[in-house]
C-alpha cells in the first residue's frame, strides 16, 4: 500500500514539475475548442485635420467578432480638452445605420483633445479613448505634451 502511494507521489511530482518546465509550442487556433467571447469592436473615425471653429464629424463604427451588426444597449461619447475633463458631460450619438454612430462637433480653441466612446451589448463592453489635435500645431505646443500622464493622474482623482 505504501509503495503504491509512493509511486503515485513520485508520478505526481514528475507530472507537476513537467507542468512547470513546459512551455513549448501550441497549435494555431486551439482557442476554438474553448469558450469564446463575442467581442464588441470599435473604430473611432476623426478627420485627420481639424480647424478651430469648423464643424466636423466624430464617428464610431461598431462591429462584433461574429460579423453581425451589434445591438447596442448603450452608447455615449465624451469629448474633452487635455487636462480639462468634466465628468458626466456626455453626448448621445445618432445611429446612421450598419453600426455607424456619429456626432457633429465644433471646437473653438486649439489644442489636444480626447474623445472616449463607451458602448456595450449584453455580452461585451468597450471604452476606448482616442486623442486628436485641433488647429495648427507649432513646435511650442509639443513641449506641453505629457498629455497621457495628465490623463492618468486625472483619472485617479475621482
Amino acid at each position, binding site marked *: 500500500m*505504501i*509503495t503504491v*502511494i*509512493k509511486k503515485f*507521489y513520485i508520478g*505526481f511530482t*514528475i*507530472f*507537476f*514539475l*513537467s*507542468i512547470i*518546465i*513546459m*512551455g*513549448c*509550442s*501550441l*497549435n494555431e487556433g*486551439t*482557442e476554438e*475548442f*474553448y*469558450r*469564446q*467571447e463575442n*467581442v*464588441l*469592436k*470599435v*473604430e473611432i473615425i*476623426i478627420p*485627420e*485635420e481639424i480647424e478651430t471653429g469648423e464643424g466636423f464629424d466624430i464617428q464610431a463604427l461598431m462591429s462584433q*467578432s461574429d460579423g453581425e451588426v451589434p445591438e447596442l444597449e448603450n452608447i455615449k461619447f465624451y469629448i474633452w480638452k487635455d487636462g480639462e475633463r468634466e465628468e458626466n458631460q456626455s453626448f448621445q450619438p445618432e445611429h446612421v445605420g450598419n453600426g455607424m454612430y456619429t456626432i457633429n462637433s465644433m471646437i473653438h480653441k486649439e489644442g*489636444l483633445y*480626447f474623445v472616449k466612446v463607451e458602448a456595450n451589448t449584453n455580452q*461585451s*463592453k*468597450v*471604452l*476606448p*479613448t*482616442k*486623442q*486628436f*489635435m485641433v488647429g495648427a*500645431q507649432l*513646435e511650442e505646443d*509639443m*513641449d506641453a*505634451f*505629457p*498629455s*497621457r*500622464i495628465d*490623463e*492618468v493622474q486625472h*483619472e*485617479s482623482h475621482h
Partner: protein
Amino acid sequence: MAQNIATNSGTGYPPSIWVGSAPTTTVKTKDIADVPWAAQNLLVPTSTIQGYIPVSIDEIVQIAQQNNVHPTYEVIYPRSKEGVFTLSAFPPKAKDEATIHIDQYTGAILADYRYEHYEFVGKVMAWGITIHKGLEYGLVNQIALLMLSLGIIAVVISGVVLWWKRKPKAHIGAPKLPEGKTAKGFFALMVVMGIIFPLFGLSIVFALIIEWLIIKRVDKFKKFFNH
C-alpha cells in the same frame, strides 16, 4: 508536453493559461497613438498624434470588479503595442481561477476563462495543483499532505534500513534479470512516459548513461550492482 497535448486536443486548459499565447488588440496598429513622452520635444505631425491611448489601470480594476474576478487577481500589463492586459487569479480553490484578457485600447474582454471553461483534463490538473499546494481543502488538506510526506520519509528511511539489514556482503542484493523474461512492455511504457514527461525521460536517460559508462565498465561496480 502534457499541457500542450491536452490543450491542443481540446480537453485541457484553454490556451494562454499555461501554454499558448494571449489574443491581441482589436484595433488597427496604425490607429494607435505614438507614445508622447518618447517624442516629447520633437515636432510631431498631427496624424501621428491622433490615435488610441491605452485604458487606465482604474478602468482595468473596474472591469475586474464588474466581472466578479476573485480579489486575489494580478494585473499583467501589455508587453507590446498589440498586447493585452491580463487579469490572472489563482486563488486557493480551483473553482475560483480566472484568466481574462482585456484589449488595452478598447477595454473589451477578448477572452474570459474560468475554471468552468476548462475541459476535463484541465479541471483535473487545476484541482490537482491546488490540492498539491495544500490550499483546496485548507487545514485538512495540509494535514493529509503532511502525513503523506512523513510516510514517504518513513518509506525512504525504513527502505534503506531494511535493505542494509538483509544485504549480502559482496553486492547490492538486487535480483538478476530472470532467464527468458524480457521487459519490453515496461521499456515501451518508460519511453512513452519519458516523452510525455520530459523531465522523467531525462532522468531515465541519465540513469542509463551512468549504467552504460560506469557500472558496466568498472568491475568493482559491476560486482556490487550484481550485474
